[in-house]
C-alpha cells in the first residue's frame, strides 16, 4: 500500500508577475488529517485548487495515488468549499441525491448513504426541508455531506466550520474525526481556527507567500517553534507599550516578544519565575497592568511566530 496518497512536486503558480505558489513540495499520508494553515493570500486556495485539478500549475505536478491529477478518477476527491454551495430550492434529500447521481452512485446504495449522512450530521429531521429554510449551521453540515456523498478517498475541507456556533462545530469535528478513524479517509483541512487545526490535525502545514514554511505534527511544531510558556500582558496606556516590549526583550531567556490583538505576548523559559520581577519593574516605572495571564504555547503562537503579525489584505 502506498503511504502517500497525494504528492505536490515543485508546484508553482504565477498570475502574471505575481508568484502565488512557489515550488511547493508536500506529501500527504493516506488516512491522515492534514491541517493546511496560512494567512489570507498566502496561497492556500491556489495550492488546493491545483492539488485537486481545478487549476493548472505553471510548473510542477501533483500526483494522486501516483497518477497525475489530470488523469485522476473524479470520485477520488470530495471537496467541501468554504462558501455554501447548495441548491436553495431543493430539499436536503434532493441536494444529496443530485450529487450522488452526478457521481453515478447506484440508487440503492445512494438511498442508504443519504440516510446515514443525514443521521451522522443531525439533519434527518430536515431531510425534506428546502435548503433556503435551513439555519446557517445546518447548511454548513449539508455542505459537508455533499462533499462525501460519493465516499471519496480524499476529502478536502475548506474552512468547514466558518461561522458555526460551538455546538455545530463540535458535531462537525466529531464527523471529521470519524472520517479518519472509521472510514479511513484522508482529510485536508484548511482553517483559520488554530484550535480546530490543533485538535483535528495529525500534521500541520503552514504556508506563507506561496512557500511551505513548516510541516509537522502540532505537538512538534509547538515544541520546536514555541518553546517555553507565554505571559500575556494588557497595558492600557499605548505610549508605554514600546517601553514594556523593550524591557521584556532584555530579560534573560526571552525567546520572543510580540504584540497580538493589543496584548503583549512574552514567550520565555521559566515564564512563571519571571513574573515577580516583571511586575516589580512595571510598578516601579508606574505602568499600570490591566490584565496578566500565563498560559502554555498554542498553535496560534507558532502561526504568528512563523507568519508575523502584519495584515495581509
Amino acid at each position: 500500500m502506498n503511504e502517500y496518497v497525494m504528492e505536490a512536486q515543485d508546484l508553482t503558480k504565477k498570475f502574471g508577475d505575481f508568484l502565488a505558489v512557489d515550488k511547493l513540495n508536500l506529501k500527504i499520508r493516506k488516512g491522515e488529517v492534514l491541517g493546511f494553515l496560512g494567512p489570507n493570500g498566502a496561497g492556500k486556495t491556489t495550492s488546493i485548487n491545483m492539488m485537486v485539478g481545478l487549476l493548472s500549475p505553471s510548473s510542477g505536478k501533483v500526483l494522486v495515488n501516483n497518477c497525475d491529477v489530470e488523469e485522476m478518477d473524479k470520485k477520488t476527491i470530495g471537496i467541501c468549499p468554504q462558501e455554501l454551495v447548495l441548491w436553495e430550492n431543493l430539499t436536503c434529500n434532493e441536494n444529496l441525491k443530485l450529487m450522488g447521481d452526478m457521481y453515478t452512485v447506484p440508487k440503492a446504495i445512494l438511498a442508504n448513504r443519504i440516510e446515514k449522512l443525514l443521521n451522522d450530521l443531525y439533519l434527518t429531521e430536515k431531510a425534506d426541508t428546502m435548503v433556503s429554510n435551513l439555519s446557517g449551521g445546518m447548511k454548513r453540515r449539508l455542505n459537508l455531506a455533499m462533499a462525501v456523498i460519493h465516499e471519496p478517498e480524499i476529502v478536502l475541507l475548506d474552512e468547514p466550520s466558518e461561522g458555526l456556533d460551538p455546538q455545530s462545530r463540535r458535531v462537525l469535528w466529531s464527523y471529521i474525526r470519524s472520517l479518519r478513524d472509521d472510514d479511513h479517509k484522508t482529510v485536508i483541512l484548511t482553517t483559520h481556527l488554530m484550535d480546530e487545526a490543533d485538535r483535528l490535525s495529525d500534521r500541520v502545514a503552514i504556508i506563507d507567500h506561496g512557500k511551505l514554511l513548516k510541516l509537522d505534527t502540532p505537538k512538534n511544531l509547538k515544541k520546536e517553534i514555541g518553546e517555553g510558556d507565554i505571559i500575556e500582558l494588557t497595558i492600557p496606556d499605548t505610549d508605554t507599550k514600546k517601553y514594556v516590549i523593550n524591557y521584556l526583550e532584555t530579560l534573560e531567556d526571552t525567546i520572543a516578544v510580540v504584540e497580538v490583538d493589543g496584548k503583549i505576548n512574552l514567550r520565555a523559559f521559566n515564564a512563571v519565575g519571571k513574573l515577580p520581577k516583571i511586575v516589580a519593574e512595571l510598578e516601579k516605572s508606574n505602568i499600570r497592568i490591566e490584565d496578566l495571564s500565563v498560559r502554555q504555547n498554542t498553535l496560534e503562537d507558532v502561526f504568528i511566530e512563523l507568519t508575523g503579525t502584519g495584515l495581509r489584505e
Partner: protein
Amino acid sequence: MKFMSIASKDLKELLRDRRGLFFLLLLPIFFMLIFSFAFGTMGQNNEPNSIAVVNLDTGVTLPNGTTVNYGDNFTDTMKGLKYQDTDVNLFNITQTSEANASNLVKQRNVDLELIIPAGFSQSMVDMAQTVQGTGSAGAVTLNSSTSNVTSKLIIRGDKGYSGFGTSLSILTGAVGSYQDGVIGAMGGVEPQEFIQTSVEGIPGTQSFTAFDYIAPGMMVFAILLLSTSVAAMLTKEVESGTLRRLKLSEMTSFDYLFGGCYHGPLWQVHRSSYS
C-alpha cells in the same frame, strides 16, 4: 442518465422559485406585446382591406319600370364604408372577373374574393315581398322563385392566410350592416336569415393551415427563449458556485446542457402558445 437528474433539478427549482416563475410566465406576454408593436398591426390597423368583388348580379326590373341592381348597390355601399371616426375606407375594392379574382387571391394582392350571385337582386326583391307579406319574424327561404335566384354570397380565399381571416370578419360585419339597412328601408321585421354567405377555400391553398404560417416563427421564438433560459440558468449556477461543484463531479457538459434543454419543452410549449 445524469441529464435527467439535471433536468429534474432544473424543473423543481423553476417551479419552486415563485418570483422567477412569475417573470417566466410574464415574459412571453411581454415579448408578444413587443413583437406585436414591432411587426404587428397594433396602432396602425386602420388600413383598407383589399378584396376583389365579382359581381354577377344582372339586376331586376321593378313593376314600376325602374331597374335596380342590388349587387352594384352592395358594392358601392362597401366602397363607402369607413373605419369609425376616420376617413379611412374599410375596403379597397377591385371589381374584376371570377378568374382574375382567384389569381389576385393566390398572389395575395387581395385578401379574398367576394362573388355576388347572378340572382342577387331578384332574391332581394322576393325577400322584400315575403317580408311585407308575412310581417313576422322567422326563417325565410330566399331561393323561393326560381332555382337560380339566391342571395348567397360566396367568399373565397386562402383559409390559412391571416389577412383572409381579418378581411372575412370585417366583411361579415359589413354584410350584416347592409342587411339591417335594407330591411330598415323596407320597413319590415328582420328575418333570421336574409343574406347568406358561403366561405370556400381557393383550390391549391387548402393544405396550408394557420399553423404552417406561424410554425417557423414559433420555432425561432422557441429557440430564442430556450437559449436565454439556459443562459440564465448557467449564470445562476456560476454565481452560486454550484456549477463548480457539478464540474468536479462526473457530469459532462453534454449532461448539463442537454438536461437544461430537456426540461424546457414544457416551458417552450407555454411560451410558444403566445407567439
